[in-house]
């Protein structure tokens, strides 16, 4: 399975995502500069966290116009796996691959800590290695993770089981329905604020994030992988 990690000016979790793919899956992973638009060689695309374009104007907005996003949109249409983590999630909403928007944390402060999440949908390509309803511990680190959508969209997310992760216990940012991560209707584009790549080895304090990556590999093997 071949992974791509997109790099925008200001991305800073790109290297962490690359390491996570290497450490957890020992799979091939390629950094892709924001000016490339051909992603046809890859089976899965990771939009990493960070502060693309300094988070200026609105988080994710300036990156959403990069050439590489054309490639991401195409990959998404073709049913390839796309995951946006933190800033990557923000970019996916700005570009319209996921509904809603991420707004400033309700307490107006950046927040970094381990957070308990509930796996609300363990039947996605990104969560099939988790148990339905399982509680996991993964760090967050964001100032704008407050997920917002209107009531109609929320109802639809619920109806289609598109809410994948919620904050169990304290909601750190004021997001509607405690949403921490959502998936598109087709089920191949995931956005999440917590950082699974920061919880993959024992010394990191939790290994619960590793299964986001193993899930993707497993799904790919079962559905697309010839090898």
């Amino acid at each position, binding site marked *: 399975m071949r992974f791509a990690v997109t790099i925008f000016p200001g991305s800073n979790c790109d290297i962490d995502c690359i390491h996570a793919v290497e450490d957890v899956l020992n799979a091939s992973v390629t950094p892709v500069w924001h000016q490339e638009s051909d992603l046809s060689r890859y089976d899965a695309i990771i939009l990493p966290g960070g502060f693309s374009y300094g988070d200026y104007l609105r988080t994710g907005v300036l990156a959403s*116009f990069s050439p590489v996003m054309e490639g991401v949109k195409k990959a998404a249409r073709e049913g390839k796996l796309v995951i946006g983590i933190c800033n990557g999630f923000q970019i996916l909403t700005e570009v319209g691959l996921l509904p809603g*928007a991420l*707004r*400033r*944390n309700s307490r107006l402060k950046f927040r970094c800590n381990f957070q308990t999440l509930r796996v609300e949908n363990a039947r996605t390509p990104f969560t099939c290695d988790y148990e339905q309803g399982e509680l996991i511990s993964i760090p967050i680190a964001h100032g704008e993770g407050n997920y917002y959508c*209107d009531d109609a969209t929320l109802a639809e997310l619920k109806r289609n089981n598109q809410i994948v992760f919620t904050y169990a216990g304290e909601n750190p940012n*004021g997001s509607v329905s405690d949403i921490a991560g959502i998936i598109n209707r087709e089920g191949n584009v995931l956005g999440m604020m917590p950082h699974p790549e920061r919880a993959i080895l024992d010394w990191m304090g939790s290994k619960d994030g590793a299964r986001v990556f193993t899930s993707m590999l497993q799904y790919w093997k079962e559905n697309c992988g010839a090898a």
Partner: protein
Amino acid sequence: MFKATIYVTLKESVLDPQGVAVRGSLQTLGYEGVKDVRIGKKIEVILEGSSREEAEAQVKEFSEKVLSNPVTETFTYELEEVVSCASQ
């Protein structure tokens, strides 16, 4: 040369935590008459354009596509012609 001023504000239905925080601190500081605060952006763009129509079309387009997010925000703009402009 034109100067466009774009005001991007949150939709009525969207809570503005920053506005709420500012209202709170104004009230604690003794400005008890303050009932509501909403915070938006004021974006000034200097642009060249051969005509007012062309400039206006551009401003409308990039305000909608880039400067505001339709999920949470709305915008208005003003456009004026400016004679000379010092900025490079």
